[in-house]
């Protein structure tokens, strides 16, 4: 396959940045998208040009480190992570436009690399159960209905890649935040801090500069782990019931 790549290049956070075109030949259909970029980078390196920087790590679709807005969609045309996207999803001679995630809360660090630490801070605001190591009850002490455990697992699958923010027209982090709020709201272990958690995580989400939710459903449609927007509804419920009934004035 021969491709034309239109890639966003930006030296650092303060650089203005812009698109640059690259021609790439000899691409195999069996390559993953990132392997295709590896090939480009090897060519650039051999020519002494600075390789295209992009985030990636596990390349198994689970760490959530890879990103990229490919031809107008987060993680490209398939509902998967970029590392699991294969070149058989593209056609010979195609022009592929590659952009970084765009959100005020995800500033670009270099080329296609963005800073997603806002997600960490949302979790730090309350995405946990406050138990210290040791001194916990036996794991089978509280039975959890399988359906509830499964729903919690559905929400817990979020890999924190940020595709939901990237896809959302408002760069909203509702799907990410609600996935964690939901997981812990569903499980008995999460009940103790249920109200405070919803209040604090929503407040942090807003403080990071993410947009509001318009319920377009784009996040769900693009989420590589298929996290459902029912979680958003659940978080809304959790939040509204928390603000009217919690002890936090």
């Amino acid at each position, binding site marked *: 396959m021969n491709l034309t790549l239109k890639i966003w290049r930006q030296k650092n956070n303060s650089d203005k940045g812009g698109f640059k075109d690259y021609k790439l030949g000899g691409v195999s259909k069996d390559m993953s998208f990132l392997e295709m970029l590896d090939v480009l980078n090897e060519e650039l390196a051999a020519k002494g040009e600075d390789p295209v920087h992009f985030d990636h790590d596990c390349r198994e679709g689970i760490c959530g480190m890879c990103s990229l807005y490919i031809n107008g969609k987060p993680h490209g045309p398939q509902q998967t992570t970029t590392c699991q996207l294969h070149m058989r999803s593209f056609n010979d001679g195609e022009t592929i436009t590659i952009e970084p995630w765009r959100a005020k809360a995800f500033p670009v660090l270099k080329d296609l690399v963005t800073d997603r630490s806002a997600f960490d801070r949302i979790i730090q605001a309350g995405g946990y159960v406050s138990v210290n190591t040791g001194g916990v009850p036996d794991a089978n002490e509280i039975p959890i209905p399988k359906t509830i455990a499964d729903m919690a697992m559905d929400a*817990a699958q979020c890999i924190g890649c940020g595709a939901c923010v990237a896809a959302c027209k408002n760069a909203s982090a509702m799907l990410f935040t609600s996935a964690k709020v939901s997981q812990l709201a569903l499980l008995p272990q999460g009940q103790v801090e249920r109200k405070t958690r919803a209040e604090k995580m929503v407040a942090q989400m807003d403080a990071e500069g993410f947009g509001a939710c318009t319920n377009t459903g784009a996040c769900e449609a693009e989420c590589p782990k298929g996290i459902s927007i029912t979680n958003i509804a659940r978080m809304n419920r959790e939040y509204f019931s928390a603000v009217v009934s919690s002890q936090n004035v």
Partner: protein
Amino acid sequence: MILDSKIPEGPLAEKWTKHKFNVKLVNPANKRKYDVIVVGTGLAGASAAASLAELGYNVKAFCFQDSPRRAHSIAAQGGINAAKNYQNDGDSVYRLFYDTIKGGDYRARESNVYRLAEVSVKIIDQCVAQGVPFAREYGGLLANRSFGGAQVSRTFYARGQTGQQLLLGAYSALSRQVANGKVKLYPRTEMMDVVTIDGKAKGIITRNLITGAIESHAAHAVLLCTGGYGNVFFLSTNAMGSNVTAAWRAHKKGALMANPCFTQIHPTCIPVSGDHQSKLTLMSESLRNDGRVWVPATVATAEKLRKGQIKANDIKEEDRDYFLERKYPSFGNLVPRDVASRNAKYVCDEGRGVNETGEAVFLDFRDAIKRDGKDIISAKYGNLFDMYQQITGENPYEMPMMIYPAVHYTMGGLWVDYNLMTNVPGLYALGEANFSDHGANRLGASALMQGLADGYFVIPYTIGDYLAQNPAGKIGTDHPEFQKAEKEVKERIQKLLGIKGEKTIDHFHKRLGKIMWDYCGMARTEEGLKKAKAMIKELKSEFWSSVNVLGDNEELNQSLEKAHRVADFIELGELMVDDALNRNESCGGHFREEYQTPEGEALRDDENFAYVAAWKYLGEGQEEELVKEPLIFENVKLTQRSYK
């Protein structure tokens, strides 16, 4: 040099309890006067950082990823072992201990392994309390599955994403301590060196991966939780960023590297498809619970298959060789990983491989689907099947999967004593970064167990013993050793940037990987290893004269990051070869072709090699010194492993 493993006296089952009583304690009010550095935020690092912060220590946690949640523990799929015996099928702490020692081919310390089995039960309790959504039965209790190398169901799992859920649990505990101000987090920061003062570890030098700033961090103790070094093979199931640099720098500062040649080759990976391949993808070993491994019975049939003249489903039952079931009737497809991998290699070497490259065997779910129905199989393995289809473009519900072994885990690592401290006082190694619990082969679902055991339930006790004997209070980075180490790091960076050769970094990494895979992979020979050693030496000098590292230090520079890592992998590769050459026996993942039984099984030499081979760095260009820690088995009888 004599290594003191500090194994407590007394009967096996009482060692840890006694030891916990005997170790010195740090008064609760004094804990806040101690600083601890944790490098790496995988299961071991995140759990250690969180637990130590909960106790009151001031923790600084470092990771090279953009978030602690991305550490490669996240990729573990299958599950985590624990001797809960919830299934009433005869499991016990002793049985988990025994299975692990046996699975490791009797090259692990009894005391460490027993402790691991002992604390395993608490890990599950802890994770459930954190909100980890483990799989459950309809009655609401926890579900278990069986795994390779065991005849009981003791593996807890969260769909095919157990590692992810456990890591997110540890990450949430860590995040809570970040919010509490007890942990300061340094993401996108790579450890470049350990700083020792008067022989004790007192801090680290780091590089900020965004700005390139070289910084010193001082602490009373340093914990390396930096994972394994499987990427020395270039192609492995490790993450692209997984590296040996932290451990290797510690090694060069005096920490011994133990059993570096013990690498695990995982049997159920997706086969290599071409030269472009950047990494290999593992599918959970749990697939072997229902999938049957086979190749055509004859080379002729296999050839037709490879040429595309026939399809797998065209091959009749009698023309199939279910080689694991045939050779190991009692364990069948659930033999330990090393045995499964090696047998796959044998049948492929015979010319019975099933894909174009001839390096693949079938893993077939036809019978399982017939027996249980597609829905049950899909519920168990749906995400793995999807992943397989995503990568290969083939539907495993209809066609058998193709698998081939790939480098997956490294049992070797920094030598540690019973307290998980390396021979450098104040420097600890946890999780895959150390060597201690898996001997020559790790059982499935035990890596997660070890990482969390070390972080949640071992280090919080043992670190106190060291800290209590060292004065508390602020320690700064103004000691000349910090300046010296910083200077060395900067010089190395300038050296790498200054070579400006003509070859790319990946060029060297790929070459190193091929040498390692060909000569120090699934099967090794003295001749091959000697050849490999010469090749690596040559590669090293070529690297330092003709690599091209682009860009500057003062920016986000992925070339520079990679260059550091590959430079260290090359040096490690040489040591692995030395270690493999030294170990004139076959055991677990280390298979020397000269040492095998007539049936082709690994032939151990307990008389001469029942020891940990720990290697001491003596200086640039010098052969490393071998230091032996004898392994003493008081509770298990050393036998030839048999899974027949």
